[in-house]
C-alpha cells in the first residue's frame, strides 16, 4: 500500500449536552451565548454554496442581522443541486395518526444509518423536522395536498409510517426555491451580498481560526480573497469522485478538501450511498446518471427473470417465471427496503446473470400492477414527470413496458467532521448539509437529505453560530501573510494545471478515476480491491499532473480549467476514501466489505471494533485516524433486519 497512516488521539464531541435526549437541543439553545442585534451588523459570515443548507443558512443569518457573503459557482443560487431532489422530505408530524413520532423518526434514522450516527444529532434532526414543514408551507412551497386542503404524505424506504411530504416529483426544487426566494429577499434587503459564478479554492486561516476564503471569479478569472468572522461550508457531497453519479456535473469536493488540507478532519469518507433506482448507463460517452425517485418503489415492483440469460421481452415472461426478489427476500418491507439493501440485491441478481437490458446491468421496475389497481390516470398524477423523464432519456414508455433501473452513486454520508454545533475541527469553520458527516451514519434514508439540509440551515446553525460569534469581537485583524499564502497557493495550482500541456483531457482522467472507484470502492469492497485502488490512484494522479491538457489561460471563463482543478482534488479524496474503506473491515450501511457478511449475504457489522466515527486528519506523513466512539443509550444496537 502506498499510503501510510497512523492512529492519533481519540476525538470527542464536546458540545452535545448530556441529560435526557428530548431536552438536549433545548438545553444547548439555552446555553448558547447570544449576539446583540447591534453587534450582529458588525459581524461578517461567509456561506459557500446555495443549496438547501447554504441557501437557508444565508437567508436566515441575513434575517438575524449578520452581514452575509454568499458564494456559488453557478450563475444563480437557484441552480444548486438540491433542486434535483425528487421524492420528498421526512417530518415527524404524525398527521396520518399512523403511530409516527419524533422518537420513531429518530429510531428509524439511527437504525437506517446502521448504528453509525450520533444519537444526539439524530434526535435533534427529528425534533426540528416538524418546524421545517411549517416554515416551507408559510413560504408558499406548494406541497401535495388532499381534497380537504391538508397536506398529503407518502411512504419511503426504511419506514413503516407515511411521513414523507412531497411536491410531485420535484420536492427538492420547491424547497430550494423557497430557500432561494428567502435568500433573494435578504439580498434585496442588503443583508446578503451574493457572488455567483465564484468558486471557492482555498480557506484562509488566521490565528487558528477560519477567517475567509479565496475564490476565483469564473467570468473574469480573477483570484479574490474575502474575509469574515466565520466561514460556513455548504458545498454538498463528493459523489462525483465516481465521475458517473446522480450529482450535477459541477458538484465537487474542492471546498471541503481544501479545508481538510488546512486542518479540518474528514469523517467516514468511505460512506457512500448507492441509489437503487437510476437509469442504467447507455454508452461510453455517458456524462451523468439520472435518478428515478425512490418513491416509485411505493407502487413499482422490482423483478428480474428467474432464469439466467432469459432475453425475452418483459411482456413475454410469464408471471411464474419472474422473481420479485425484494418481496421474496424481505417480506416485511418488500420493495421498500432501505437503499443500501435494495442496491446490493440488484447487484447480486445481475451478478448471477439475471440482469436485463444492455450488458445485463439492470432490473425491472414494473408499474403494471399499480396501473391495473389504481388506473393509469392516478399513476400519472403521482409519477407523471418521472415517467416523462424516463421516456425522454431512454426512448421507452414506462406505462407500457417496465422501467429498467440500476444502482448509481447518489449521496455521500461522509464529510467534514463537525461537533453538535456543526463546527469543524477548525474554530470558526462550520459545515452544513451533505458536506458534513453528521446525521445519517453509514446509510441515509430516503427523504432525509432535504430534512437535514434545511434543519442545519434554518434552525441549527443560526443558533450555534451565534454562540461562536458572541466571542468574535476579539478575533482581531486577519494575518496578511496568511492571506498572501492562500492566494499564492491558488495561483500556483492554476498555473501548474495550465503549464502541463499534455495529451489527455481532465475529463478522460476523471472518467478513469471514476471507473476505478466504482470497480474497487463501489457497492462491494474487498481488501484486495481496495489495495489495488490504492496502488493505482497515485500512479494515475502522477500521470494526470504530467500529461493533462488544459486549454486556454486563467483569464476569463475557462470551463476546462475549472474541471481540471476539481479532478485534481478528487484524486486525493479517492485515496482517503479507499484507505477508510480498507481500515473498516466490517460492513455497515452503504459500506459493504465482502469479507464481512452473514450467511444470507447481509452486511455484518463489527460493533466491538468499529462503533466509531473515523475522523481523518491530514498529515504530511500520511493521514492520522482519530476515533470518536459512538454510544447508544436510547436505541439498542441490533443487526438490522428488514425481513
Amino acid at each position: 500500500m502506498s499510503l501510510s497512516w497512523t492512529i492519533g488521539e481519540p476525538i470527542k464531541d464536546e458540545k452535545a449536552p448530556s441529560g435526557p435526549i428530548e431536552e438536549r437541543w433545548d438545553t444547548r439553545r439555552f446555553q448558547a451565548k447570544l449576539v446583540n442585534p447591534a453587534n450582529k451588523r458588525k459581524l461578517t459570515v461567509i456561506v459557500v454554496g446555495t443549496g438547501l443548507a447554504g441557501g437557508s443558512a444565508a437567508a436566515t443569518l441575513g434575517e438575524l442581522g449578520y452581514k452575509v457573503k454568499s458564494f456559488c459557482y453557478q450563475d444563480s443560487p437557484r441552480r444548486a443541486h438540491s433542486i434535483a431532489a425528487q421524492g420528498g422530505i421526512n417530518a415527524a408530524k404524525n398527521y396520518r395518526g399512523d403511530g409516527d413520532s419524533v422518537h420513531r423518526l429518530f429510531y428509524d434514522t439511527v437504525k437506517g444509518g446502521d448504528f453509525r450516527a450520533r444519537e444526539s444529532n439524530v434526535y435533534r434532526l427529528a425534533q426540528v423536522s416538524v418546524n421545517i414543514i411549517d416554515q416551507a408551507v408559510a413560504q408558499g412551497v406548494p406541497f401535495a395536498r388532499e381534497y380537504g386542503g391538508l397536506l398529503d404524505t407518502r411512504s419511503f424506504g426504511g419506514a413503516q409510517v407515511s411521513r414523507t411530504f412531497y411536491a410531485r416529483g420535484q420536492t427538492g426544487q420547491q424547497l430550494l426555491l423557497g430557500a432561494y426566494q428567502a435568500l433573494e429577499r435578504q439580498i434585496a434587503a442588503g443583508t446578503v451580498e451574493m457572488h455567483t459564478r465564484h468558486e471557492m479554492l482555498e480557506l484562509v486561516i488566521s490565528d487558528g481560526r477560519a477567517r475567509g476564503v479565496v475564490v476565483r471569479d469564473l467570468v473574469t478569472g480573477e483570484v479574490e480573497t474575502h474575509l469574515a468572522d466565520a466561514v460556513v461550508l455548504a458545498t454538498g457531497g463528493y459523489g462525483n469522485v465516481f465521475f458517473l453519479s446522480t450529482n450535477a456535473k459541477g458538484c465537487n469536493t474542492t471546498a471541503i478538501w481544501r479545508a481538510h488540507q488546512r486542518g479540518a478532519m474528514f469523517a467516514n469518507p468511505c460512506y457512500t450511498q448507492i441509489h437503487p433506482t437510476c437509469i442504467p448507463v447507455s454508452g461510453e460517452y455517458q456524462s451523468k446518471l439520472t435518478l428515478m425517485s425512490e418513491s416509485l418503489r411505493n407502487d413499482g415492483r422490482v423483478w428480474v427473470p428467474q432464469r439466467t440469460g432469459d432475453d425475452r421481452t418483459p411482456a413475454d415472461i410469464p408471471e411464474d417465471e419472474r422473481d420479485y426478489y425484494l418481496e421474496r427476500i424481505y417480506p416485511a418491507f418488500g420493495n421498500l427496503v432501505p437503499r443500501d439493501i435494495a442496491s446490493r440485491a440488484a447487484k447480486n441478481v445481475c451478478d448471477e446473470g439475471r440482469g436485463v437490458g444492455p450488458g445485463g446491468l439492470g432490473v425491472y421496475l414494473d408499474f403494471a400492477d399499480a396501473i391495473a389497481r389504481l388506473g393509469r390516470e392516478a399513476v400519472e398524477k403521482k409519477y407523471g414527470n418521472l415517467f416523462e423523464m424516463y421516456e425522454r432519456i431512454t426512448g421507452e414508455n414506462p406505462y407500457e413496458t417496465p422501467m429498467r433501473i440500476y444502482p448509481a452513486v447518489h449521496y455521500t454520508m461522509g464529510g467534514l467532521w463537525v461537533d453538535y454545533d456543526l463546527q469543524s475541527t477548525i474554530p470558526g469553520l462550520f459545515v452544513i448539509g451533505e458536506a458534513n458527516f453528521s446525521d445519517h451514519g453509514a446509510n441515509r434514508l430516503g427523504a432525509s437529505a432535504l430534512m437535514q439540509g434545511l434543519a442545519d440551515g434554518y434552525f441549527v446553525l443560526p443558533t450555534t453560530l451565534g454562540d461562536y460569534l458572541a466571542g468574535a469581537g476579539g478575533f482581531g485583524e486577519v494575518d496578511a501573510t496568511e492571506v498572501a499564502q492562500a492566494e499564492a497557493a491558488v495561483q500556483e495550482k492554476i498555473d501548474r494545471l495550465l503549464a502541463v500541456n499534455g495529451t489527455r483531457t481532465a475529463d478522460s482522467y476523471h472518467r478513469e478515476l471514476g471507473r476505478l472507484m466504482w470497480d474497487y470502492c463501489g457497492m462491494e469492497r474487498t481488501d484486495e480491491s481496495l489495495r489495488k485502488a490504492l496502488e493505482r490512484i497515485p500512479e494515475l494522479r502522477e500521470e494526470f499532473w504530467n500529461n493533462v491538457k488544459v486549454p486556454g489561460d486563467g483569464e476569463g471563463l475557462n470551463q476546462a480549467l475549472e474541471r481540471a482543478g476539481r479532478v485534481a482534488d478528487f484524486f486525493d479524496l479517492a485515496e482517503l476514501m479507499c484507505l477508510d474503506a480498507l481500515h473498516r473491515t466490517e460492513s455497515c450501511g452503504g459500506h459493504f466489505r465482502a469479507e464481512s457478511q452473514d450467511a444470507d449475504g447481509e452486511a455484518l457489522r463489527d460493533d466491538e471494533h468499529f462503533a466509531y466515527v473515523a475522523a481523518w486528519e491530514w498529515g504530511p506523513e500520511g493521514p492520522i485516524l482519530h476515533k470518536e466512539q459512538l454510544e447508544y443509550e436510547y436505541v439498542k444496537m441490533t443487526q438490522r433486519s428488514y425481513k
Partner: protein
Amino acid sequence: MNLTLKIWRQNGSSDRGRMVTYEVQDVSPDMSFLEMLDVLNERLTLEGDDPVAFDHDCREGICGMCGMVINGVAHGEQRATTTCQLHMRHFEDGATVTIEPWRAAPFPVVKDLVVDRSSFDRIIQAGGFISVPAGSAPDAHAVPVPKDDADAAFDAATCIGCGACVAACPNGSASLFTAAKITHLGLLPQGQPERAARAKAMVEQMDAEGFGGCTNTGECTAVCPKGIPLDAIARMNADYLKTASK
C-alpha cells in the same frame, strides 16, 4: 450518425461573434445533446482549439442552467424538453444543426453560448417571495389550501428560470417567467398579504431590466420546458392593474 454543427462563437461581451462550422462523426442516438457537445469539446481540446463554452449543471432538466437555441428554437424542437434532456435520436443522420445562445438585451453573452441571466434574480428580489423569517411559521395545517389551488400553484412554481421564454419571444419579454412566480404565490393563502405589492414591484423590475412587453404571441409557453401556461400572464396583468388603479 454524422452531423454538421454551426455554433455561435463569441469571446466575451465586446466581441462581435460569428458562426463556426464543425463536423461531428459517430454520434450515438442515445447521447444527449450536451454529451454530443462534450465529445466535440474533448476533440477541440486535444486539437489545441478553444472548446465551446456552454452552461449546464444537473443534466436532468431541473436546474435551468442549460439553454441553447437549436435550429432556431429555444431548447430545440422537442416540446417540454430542456437542452440537456434532448437526445440525438431526434436528429437525422447528415443534418446540419445551428446552435446559438439566448439572444436578448437583458441576457448579455458572457462567452459563446453562455449568457448572464442575473436579471431574473433581480426580478425575484423585487418581490418574488413571501416574507416569513425562519422560525416564525404557524403549524403547517393551520391554513388548509384547496387542492385545486395548491395544484395550480405548483404548476406555475415548476418554472426552472432557464430563460427560454425570453429567447423565444419576439419582444424579448420576461412576462412568462415573472407571471409564473406571481401566479404561484398569488394562488396561495400565504401569498395574499403581499400580493399587490409583489405584482407591482416585479413588473416594474422586469421593465427596468429592459425586457420587452407582452403581445400575447405565445412563443414563450410553446418552448417552456415545464409548460407554464400562458394564462399566468393574464393573472399577472390583472394583479398589476389592480395596484395601478389604486
